[in-house]
Each structure stands twice: as C-alpha cells, then as structure tokens.
C-alpha cells in the first residue's frame, strides 16, 4: 500500500459505556488489512487506553489512525483540561481519576504507561486549559 489510509473517529465523552468503539473498529480494520495479530493488539490497546483517557478526563475528543507502509500512527486530540505534569502522569500508578471510574476497573494509573509500552514512539503535547494531543507510532 503506497497511499496513506486514514481512519477518523469522534470519541463521545459522555458515554463511558461505549468507550472503546473506535479501538474495536480499528482492530477490525487492521485485521482486514492482514496485519499480524501482535501489531493489531498493540495498536488497539494503546488506542483504547487513549480513548478511555479522553472520556475520563477530557469529555471526549478526536482520534485519527494513519496506516503508512512502514508504520501506524495514532493521533488522539482533545480539548480537555490538559496535563499539568507529564512526567508525573507517565509514572505507573499515578492517577487523577475519581472513585466512580475506579469502581469500573480503571484509574489504576496504567493508561499512559501502557500506551508507551505498546508503541515504538509516543509524544504528548499538552497545554493546561487548552487540551492534549498524544501521537503514537507502531512500526510495521
């Protein structure tokens, strides 16, 4: 495939129960492209964690997945509160999620670390009060 394939999703920030729709759709799309299961797993888990973060913290946002010949790029963009201290947010176990989110099994402070673990490159751009953009890359 020489052309870039783009998949675009709006992530609904009001419906926690439907969070994950975009990631599951991406998983299906990548399967159709015939990518290997481990790559698909890494991309879809990293994206799901990002999707959940957007729902928990930022009232939703937008997700783009670009499939290039040599890599998959995931861009998650929100207009949420931003991340004050990115280094702290990246630490395993650090979370600002509230109790209701924790009772659902999230908020363990593993989201961003998992996104980093499952991708080959991750960049976070965040401005407090403006929003956050996370760009992740998985090499093919």
């Amino acid at each position, binding site marked *: 495939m020489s052309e870039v394939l783009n998949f675009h999703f709006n992530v609904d920030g009001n419906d926690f129960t439907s969070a994950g729709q975009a990631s*599951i759709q991406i998983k299906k799309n990548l399967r159709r492209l015939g990518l290997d299961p481990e790559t698909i797993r890494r991309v879809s888990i990293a994206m799901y964690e990002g999707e959940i973060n957007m729902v928990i913290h930022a009232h939703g946002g937008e997700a783009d997945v670009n499939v290039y010949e040599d890599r998959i790029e995931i861009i998650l963009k929100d207009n949420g509160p931003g991340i004050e201290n990115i280094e702290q947010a990246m630490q395993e176990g650090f979370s600002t999620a509230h109790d209701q989110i924790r009772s*659902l099994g999230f908020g363990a402070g593993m989201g961003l670390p998992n996104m980093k673990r499952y991708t080959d490159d991750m960049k976070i751009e965040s401005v407090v009060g403006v929003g956050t953009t996370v760009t992740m890359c998985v090499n093919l």
Partner: protein
Amino acid sequence: MTVYDLSKNSQFNVLTMPEPEREINGVYIGDLLSWVMGKAQYDNVWITIMSNINVIAVASLSDVSCVLLAEDVTLDNEVLSTAKQKGINILSTPMSAYDAAIELSGMI
C-alpha cells in the same frame, strides 16, 4: 485445550460461547482493566470479578480466549449480548479466582 473443552467441566458454566474453538494457553487474574491489558497474554483465560461493559472491550482488545467470572458473578443482559456480538466467550464459576486457576492449571 479449547474453550469448548473447558465448558465440559461442570465447575464452569457457559454464559456465552460464540467462539468455542479458541485455544487456551494460560491464565491471567485481575480486576484493574488497564493492568489486564498490559499483562494478559493472547489466548489466556482471564479470571475476574468485574462484569461491567468495559470488560468486553478489554477482552476483545487483549485477545484473551475467554473471560471467566469468579465467585458466581453475574452479567447484565446488555453486557451478555455485546459479548455475543463481539465474539467474546464468557464462563462463570462458583469458585474463587485462586481455586479456578488451580483447576485450570490441572486441565491445560
């Protein structure tokens, strides 16, 4: 061993089994969903007491072979039908996660 083989054990009850031929190669136990996504392996049985709708997404994305609800935890119909739709096998057991893992260990 497949999920179908597991379902033949009287300790495990099938709630939904859309993909009975999935292989089982191990077990992961956990209730924190991100933790599970970080650690569970492809084709594991995932033992948990969580039963909300997000469990289905996590099971699907982690590609576990089935979800095993310990301590007779039940599922809402909505969650069950989503699982069916997404091809996620779900079984339940009266056993604790520990005892279920021991039982599975003898079967794998």
